[in-house]
């Protein structure tokens, strides 16, 4: 991974499904915005142009371990060059829900060579902070059961042939991914967060860890439009809701 000196900061979260990482990242996002920082959020597997191909592959079950790995790396590359790097250059805080470690864990479980994966993703930017939300497998499965309707083919890891029942396969798949994460925490020095703690306590700890990294980050000037509106006694009826708040 490239360790670049950029004005922005990159904070990422990792963990198995049901670890609560997205919830924590979302809470961090809201807090950072309320503090006046410019925040850009990015999610795994979301680049518009690549996503269509991934969707096509999933729908028709064309994906095998290698094509699954390659298409996700294309998605990640697209987000690095179009979203993440420009935002970091511009001094923003970038929040990434899953990063290269997701590929390292999942693809290794699918039998892809670990060394090759690290080389494949060597264009990635070294995150400022990488959080791993550690949750016991049973706890994660219970959380997922409550919230999700039906497990999808690749999500359940059915392509691995671990079990024919989606729920059983999913549990085994997540268990194997969790083992991979354990190795990654060591190798990359991910910050281990106890995801069995209360939401509030986890978030408080996360903010404490993040805070020292915010010292030289520029804040967005807020309230200028609001000031202009009130001094001219206007409501701003024709303004986009976003510009009323942020500009």
């Amino acid at each position: 991974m490239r360790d670049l000196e950029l004005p922005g900061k990159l904070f990422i979260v990792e963990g198995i499904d049901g670890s609560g990482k997205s919830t924590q990242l979302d809470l961090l996002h809201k807090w950072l915005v309320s503090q006046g920082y410019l925040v850009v959020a990015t999610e795994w597997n979301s680049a518009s142009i690549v996503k269509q191909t991934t969707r096509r592959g999933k729908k028709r079950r064309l994906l095998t371990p290698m094509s699954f790995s390659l298409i996700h790396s294309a998605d990640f590359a697209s987000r690095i060059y179009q979203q993440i790097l420009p935002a970091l250059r511009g001094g923003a805080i970038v929040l990434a829900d899953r990063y290269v470690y997701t590929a390292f864990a999942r693809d290794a479980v699918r039998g892809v060579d670990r060394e090759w994966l690290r080389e494949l993703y060597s264009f990635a930017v070294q995150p400022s902070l990488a959080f791993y939300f550690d949750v016991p497998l049973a706890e994660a499965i219970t959380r997922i059961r409550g919230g999700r309707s039906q497990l999808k083919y690749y999500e359940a890891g059915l392509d691995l042939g671990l079990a024919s029942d989606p729920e059983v396969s999913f549990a085994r798949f997540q268990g194997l991914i969790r083992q991979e994460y354990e190795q990654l925490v060591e190798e990359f020095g991910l910050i281990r967060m106890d995801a069995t703690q209360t939401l509030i306590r986890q978030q408080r700890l996360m903010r404490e860890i993040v805070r020292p990294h915010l010292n030289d980050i520029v804040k967005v000037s807020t309230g200028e439009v609001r000031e202009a509106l009130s001094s001219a006694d206007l409501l701003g009826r024709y303004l986009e809701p976003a510009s009323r708040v942020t500009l």
Partner: protein
Amino acid sequence: MTEMNFFGHRPPGIETDALPGRLIVIEATDAAGRSTHVGLLKEWLEDEGYAVMDTGLRRSDLAGPGIQQAKEGHILDPITLNLFYATDLWDRIERRILPGLRAGMVVIADRYMFSLLARAAVRGVSQRWLEDVYGFALIPDRVIYLDIDVEHLVPRVLATQGFDYWESGQDFLRGHDMFQNFVTYQRLLLAEFRRLADRYGFAVVDARGSAGDIFRALKEEVGQVVRGMPLDDPVTEVALEPDLAIGAFASDGLGVENGDAIAGVHGDAVDGQASERSALGGSSQRR
């Protein structure tokens, strides 16, 4: 036999035993006569009694349509575009080339990873990185390079499709002089191809001469590779081992027509997308 050797690590789920077919790659810059000669070779091999399948860049079911769209919009950075092409190549290796080799076919690849390495090198993408990524690629039985220079290339381009945006390097060269950009770009590209020819030991065929001379030289090269392949009716062989051959195609929307021993094995276009064509006994179809 095609030995199951890869440039890097063997990808998961791929067998280790050699396969009965042959993989022949034809590399060259655009307008060097590549597709013409692939067509001629295919017809010649079929007339000789071989079962032939051809495959080319962007023809995978998985990534072909996506790359086409991305190219039209000119919206991808070189790393993403290369990973897209890598996905396309792997999908074709796994779902076209390997099944073809298993069934004892001569697979002709109209470009492989080498064109992609050359293009990427010209655009400043790390060669070491891209070569590592392409570690999943099966080592072909032979790579034949149609060697041409810019002087011979220009009239051919003008006689055919004209100067194209990508083949003139318009995506990264400055200015609007397409002719100058074409010359600059192709000089850089051809230098990369020659470097790759040395590095990977391509069989080099001089592509400046007449089509007849080039084809004779190609037949010589290809003849050496296919020599010794059994010329029994490959369809009979295929039909005897449905799991190994037809099964691999059938699950992919392909099937045997007529159930006739000499019937062609056609690639049905799925969803209007071009897919590979394979044919026996001259029932070849081109898109």
